[in-house]
């Protein structure tokens, strides 16, 4: 299920480039303890909803975090990270995550 499409990753490149290094604030967050398929190895992991400059919003996982970073208002920056486990053909999906700054 949910095989990774290299074409789709390629199509997302422009969007990914737009978000990279953008800074913003956490407006809501959760800690996912029951993950979907492909994310088991990272769980539990925080997912944050971030408001960037000019009001644009983006959801992504938070990396390099400590408990004190899990709060509304925390400043974060968009970074490029592996999204989930590679599929059987060995394609490693990368995308946007956030880290505290």
């Amino acid at each position, binding site marked *: 299920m949910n095989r990774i499409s290299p074409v789709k990753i390629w199509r997302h490149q422009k969007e990914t480039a737009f978000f990279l290094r953008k800074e913003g604030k956490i407006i809501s967050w*959760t*800690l996912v*303890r*029951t993950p979907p398929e492909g994310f088991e190895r990272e769980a539990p992991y925080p997912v944050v909803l971030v408001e960037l400059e000019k009001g644009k919003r983006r*959801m*992504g*996982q938070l990396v390099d975090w400590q408990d004190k970073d899990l709060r509304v208002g925390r400043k974060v920056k968009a970074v490029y990270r592996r999204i*989930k486990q590679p599929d059987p053909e060995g394609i490693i999906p990368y995308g*946007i995550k956030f880290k505290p700054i």
Partner: protein
Amino acid sequence: MKIEVLGVGTTKFGELWEVSPRTLVKEAVSEALSDANLKLANIEALYVGNMLSGILGGQENLGALFAEELGLFVPAFKIEGACASGGLAVHNAINSILAGVYKTVLVVGVEKMTDYNPGEVVSALMGAGHDEERLAGMTFPGLYAMLARSYMEKYGTTERDLAVVAVKNHHHATLNSKAQFQFEVSVDQVLKSPLVADPLRLLDCSPISDGASAMILGSERQERSKTRKTVWITASSVATDSLGLVGRKDLTSLASAVEAARKAYKMAGVNPQDIDVAEVHDCFSIAEVIACEDLGFFPKGEAAGAIAKGKTTLGQGRLIINPSGGLKACGHPVGATGVKQIVEITTQLRGEEGLRQVKGAKIGLTHNVGGSGAVAVIHVLKNE
């Protein structure tokens, strides 16, 4: 508008490993037919509400599949709108009658979820979300946890305040022989259950369930049943919003539900204060709190307190919410839920619910939500 609910039926909800989707549908439909005192030959079209059959089981084309199973080769349609698939199937069936295309229509909602492991089901349910949410490894408990977080920050609501929703709905389900969980839980049990997506715990969440519900709808009939009250659907409305949470202005309300409710109240010519009984989409405890406010039952920020005071509990309140046990305790076979809600309100308005009867109920409402609020379906019913 006036659409008559001619007959209703529902299977037990739960972990039904020995039963196939075909058998579930057959059982719910035969109950609805006998309740309506109609034969299959009277049915002119079939609408099926389902979300996960394709993604989990690889089986699509459900209109034809259930037409075959029932031996009912009429026009048949599958309607999908995540957890609102059932409500959307009813809405489409109603529209077909209002358009004058059919006079008597069968609606079925069905879901078979427990054949698969939780990881598969969690991933499949995320089909209702936004691609960006899937890439974040998000889950539905996680999305509602974000709504809960925002709501709690804004109104100072606590986990304990949210837990009362589960306690009330479990209590109602003890009176429903078709409910998945027919036992009580306490606030402390909810607060001690494991975290699924902080701040939501296992007992804040509706379960993974199997089940089917069915109803037969018709244009106004000449002959009336003299032995029981007739139940009418007087409003059916749908509204949509952004697929994912990133597109929402407000994380403490579902704009789709507010809009669908506004249209439904206008269509039915009623106010929130006129509603005696409602089945709302409590996929998570926070969802019932937000639903009660979106529907205008309580002012913003006050629903959890009102629920805690018993204002929506059977035998205590004036406006009873989720007498079936809701999604939380009756169970949530996603495609069936929106149909089951109307089945429950219909039997409530007929006065046939026995122990969980809302006394003197005349006007009822159902609130069915798909995704994290991407689509909402509201129906208003009344008896005569």
